[in-house]
């Protein structure tokens, strides 16, 4: 087994940044809504928070792809690229599944 410690730390950073940004937006959007403030800003913040939440795991997959590519670990580049492709497929499905 190769040492994945640096990747583990990089992935941890991405996850922490993503979840923090998302939580701040969701918290602010929720607080504004409950306080009865301007509906448009609150809705926008909630939307940004949710999108940031959904983008966080995707971002850590991208970080993994870059790291494995740097290590020339092509098997794992292929595996992580496949996962990213599957996530993109769900975005396509979401766009076409819109009611």
């Amino acid at each position: 087994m190769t040492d994945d410690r640096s990747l583990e730390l990089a992935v941890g950073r991405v996850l922490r940044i993503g979840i923090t940004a998302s939580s701040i937006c969701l918290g602010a959007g929720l607080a504004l809504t409950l306080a009865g403030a301007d509906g448009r800003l609150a809705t926008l913040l909630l939307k940004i928070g949710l999108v940031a939440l959904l983008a966080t795991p995707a971002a850590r997959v991208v970080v993994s792809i870059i790291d494995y590519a740097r290590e020339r670990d092509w098997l794992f580049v292929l595996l992580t690229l496949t996962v990213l492709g599957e996530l993109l497929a769900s975005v396509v499905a979401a766009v076409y599944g819109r009611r």
Partner: protein
Amino acid sequence: MSAVSFALAAIIFVSGAAAGGLGALLGIGGGVFLVPLLNLALGFPIRTAAAISLATVIATSSSVSAGRSGEQLINLRLGMVLEVATVAGSLLGGLTAHLFSEMVLQRLFAAVSVLSAAAVLARVNRRNVVRDPSGDTGMLGGRFHEHESGGVVTYRVKRLPAALLASFAAGNVSSLLGIGGGIIKVPILNAWCGVPVRAAAATSAFMIGVTATGGAIIYYGRGDLVPLAAAPAVLGVQLGGWVGLRAGHHAPARTLKILLATVLVVVAVLMFVRSTR
């Protein structure tokens, strides 16, 4: 906004905190507790409950895994391999979720809970670890420092096809039911594939973020992910998860397994009873 919606937001927040606490403690994401709370107690349709729960699963997975990074308890390579199968499963689940009725999904939820409880109880005393710090881990195995015994635990991954199949099923069920899928993966990784329960739980908790994203994106596109209900759930789950993660360090593995099995059986009974009405 009215007092009712403030109360509802508060209730969702508390439900999220409870689910997140148990989920982090057990490494299963919390969805298995949140979906019944939202569906049975608060009356959300199971698809809406699933969508909200998936959002919290992503949050739990992200914050728990961020908190664990550097401990080498998460088996990154095994996770990346299994994610290929698990995200494919969640994609399929997200695409087919609207084909199933509320009753079918509730019974599926009950069945998944019972099977998982049985799998956990069957292996409650088994410890598949090699206490040899220099031992060969193979390409996908791992080693980590165990707080409980104070030693280094080494393990190899056995029966990878079984793990891949379980991951696909877990991803599928994850999207359909709004759970992380850890309740399927952790017992199988632990019992069949030789991964110690702590490493299995940490790796599963890491994977379920990506798994849940596959399904959550589709629910979001369909408008099932209600922002005003998802926000308090996501924030509550994180608070609970933060507490649960700290408590989990001190609880022995055997106690965790028995607690997990008991809760799963209770959830199954409640879901089944509701589906017959």
